[in-house]
C-alpha cells in the first residue's frame, strides 16, 4: 500500500460522524502505538468515527468491527487518509443490509 504525503492526511478528530479513513501514521510514543495496535489502530487499518460520548469526549471509533473509545487528546495524533468511498462501503450498505 502506498502511503500518501502527509499533507493529504487529517487527524481522526477532524472526521464527521460516519466518516472513515485509512490510518497513515501515529504521532505517538512507541509504547502507546504498541498498545493502540492491540485495538486495531495501526497503519493501514480502516477506522470509522461513530460518535462522541455524551459529554463530548472520549470519541468512539469503529475498528475491525468493534467500537473503541479514545480521548481526543490521543485521537488527534492519529493521522488518516479520509475516503468518501469508504463511507459507502463500511457504513451505508452495512447498516441498510442488516437493518431489515
Amino acid at each position, binding site marked *: 500500500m502506498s502511503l500518501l504525503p502527509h499533507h493529504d492526511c487529517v487527524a481522526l478528530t477532524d472526521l464527521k460522524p460516519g466518516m472513515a479513513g485509512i490510518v497513515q501514521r501515529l504521532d505517538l510514543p512507541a509504547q502507546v502505538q504498541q498498545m493502540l495496535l492491540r*485495538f486495531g489502530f495501526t497503519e493501514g487499518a480502516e477506522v470509522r468515527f461513530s460518535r462522541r460520548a455524551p459529554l463530548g469526549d472520549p470519541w468512539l471509533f469503529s475498528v475491525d468491527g468493534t467500537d473503541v473509545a479514545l480521548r481526543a487528546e490521543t485521537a488527534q495524533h492519529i493521522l488518516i487518509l479520509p475516503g468518501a468511498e469508504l463511507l459507502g462501503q463500511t457504513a451505508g450498505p452495512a447498516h441498510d443490509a*442488516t437493518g431489515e
Partner: protein
Amino acid sequence: MPTCHESPPFAVPAAPPVPGQVRTVALIGPPNSGKSTLFNRLTKLRQKVGNYPGVTVEQHTGQLTGFDHPITLVDLPGVYGLEAFSEDERVSLDVLNGKMPGLPRPDAVLLVLDVTNLSRQLSLAASVIAVGLPTMVLLNMSDLFIKRGGKLDPLKLAVELGAPVALISATAGMGMDAIDRFLRGDANQAPPTLRVLLNHPPQSRQWAAQVRTRSAYQPALPSVWSRHLDDILLHKIWGPIIFLVVVAGVFQTVFGIGKPLSDAFQNLLNDGATWAATIIPAGIFSSLLIDGLWKGLSSVLVFLPQILLLFLFIGILEDSGYLARAALISDRTLRGVGLNGKAFIPLLSAYACAVPAIMATRTIENKRERLATILIAPFMTCSARLPVYTLMIAAFIPNVPVLGPLLGARAAVMLSLYVLGFLAAFATAKLLSSSALKATNIPFVLELPEYRLPTLQSLALRLLDRGTVFLKQVGTVILAVSLVIWVLTSLPLHNGKTPPLEQSIIASLGHFIEPAIKPLGFNWKVGIGLLTSVVAREVMVGTLGTIYGTDPNTHSLPLQAALRQDLSLPGAMALLVFFAFAMQCTSTLAVVRRETNSWKWPAIQFAYMSGLAYVAALVVNQVLGLWW
C-alpha cells in the same frame, strides 16, 4: 454451515498421539471473548478460585471429567497480547512457560477468540501458538458470526496457523465435542512451530492480512441492535440521564428491597437463637454459644442479602455490557480529579467491597491513575460499613420525614454518609493528582463490547463466589474475634462464675484506651469495638453484640436500645463519621500491599484515613455537643 462438528484439521501430523499425557490445560483468550462462559461450561461447578502466588490475579481452576484421568483446566486472565504490558499478561506468559510456582507447565492450550473480531486477535493467536505448546484455536460466537453474514474456512485457517481450529459457541454449547477430541488425541502430539515476527507492527499486520485472505475470512456485519441501543444509551441528553437513573436505581433497590430481606433474615436468626436457648442447658456453655458466638455472628450475617443484591446488580451491569458505557460517560467527569473512566468500574464495585474493587483496577493501564484509584477506593461506602451505619441510625435517628414522604430522616443520614465518603474520595484524588503522583503518558483506550443478555449461570456463579468469601470471613475472622471477646468478658472467673462486665479483662483494656477516644464521645465499649474492627469494619457490630449481650444490665435489651442508653447523640454521630473515613480493613490493606508491591502505600493510606477519621469525629462530637 461450516464444519463445527467435524474432526478439527491438523496442519502437520506428527507422531501418532499417545493418549493420557494431557493433565493440565490452559484456557486463554482476550477480554470479552466468552472465555469465562466456556470455562464455566467445560468445568460446570467443579472449579476453584484462588490467587496466583505473589500477585492478585485471580486463578480459576476447574476439573474436566469424562477422561481416563482428571484433567485440570486453568483459566488465564483475559489478555490482548503476551508482551507482558500488564500483570495479567505477565502471569499468562509465566503459566504458559511453566514458570508459575505451584502450577505445572500446561500440556496443551485452548485459545478462545471472538470470531466476530478475528482480525486483531490474530496477533494474540500468533503469540500463543509461538509458545510451542499443542494449541487448539476455538473461534467462539460462531453462531452470531454466521448469522450476521461472516464467512471463514476453518480448515484453511488451521493450515495458516499450524494449529487445529474449531468454530464453537460457548453460550449455545456448540462445538464442545471438538474440544473433547482434541484433548483425547492431538493435544498429546508435539505441536508444529509457527514463526511470525512479533513486536513488529507492519510485518505482523501483513501476516494477519495474509491469513485473513487465505482462510477466506469475511467479517460479520456489526450488530445493529448494539448500535441502536447505543443511539439511546450514549445519547447526548438521554445518556447521562439514564446513567444517573441506573446508579440511583441500583442503590434504591439494594436498600429498598435489601432492607426487608435483611430484616426477615434477622428474625429467622433470632428465632434460631431463641430455639437454641430452650434446648441447651443454661450455664457457661450456653453463654458462650448464644451470647458470645451466635450474637456476634448473626449481627454480621444479616447483611448477606444486601451484599448479594449489590453484587447481583454489578454482575448484570457488567455482563450486559452497560458498565463499559458507564465508564465512557463518566470519563469526562473523572478526568477532572485526575482519574479516567475505567476507574468507574472499581469505584462502583467499591460500594460493595474495596477488595475486588482494588483488584479491578488492573484494567487501568495508566499506573498513576491506577494508584490514585486504589488509594481512594476504600472511601467509597462499602457494604461492611452498612452494619455499623444501619445499627447506629436505627438506634439514634428517629423515623420522621424530612422532605415529605420522599425522604425520611434515617434515609437522609444514610445518604449523607454515602455522599461524605464520595466527597472524601474525590478530594483525595484531586490532592493526589496535583501533587504526589507523577503523570505518565499511557492513554485511555476502552473497548465497548456488544450488548449481551447476562446468563443466569454467570450471575449465579458470581453470587456464589462473593457469598462464599463473605461467609468465610464470618466463619473465620468474626467467629474468632467473637470468641476472644467472649473469653475476655468472661475472665477472670469469680468463684467459678463469670465476673460482672465492669471487672472483666476487657473492661480494664477498654478503660485503658478510653482517654484517647473520650473527646470523640466514645465510651470504652465502643473503644473495644474500634480495636477489633481494625480487622474488618463489620466486626464492630459483632463485638458490640457480644459485649452488650454479656452485660447483665443490657443482656435482655436489643443492641439498639442498649446503645441508646450508653452513648450520647453527638458521640453516635461522631462514630458514624469515624466509620465513613477510617481504614478499618486488613483485607484491603493486604490487597493494596500486593497491588502496589510495597508497604509504603498501605501505610500512608492507613495513617491518612485514620487521622482524617479521628479529626472529623472529634469535630463532629465537639460541635454537636454545643447543642446537645
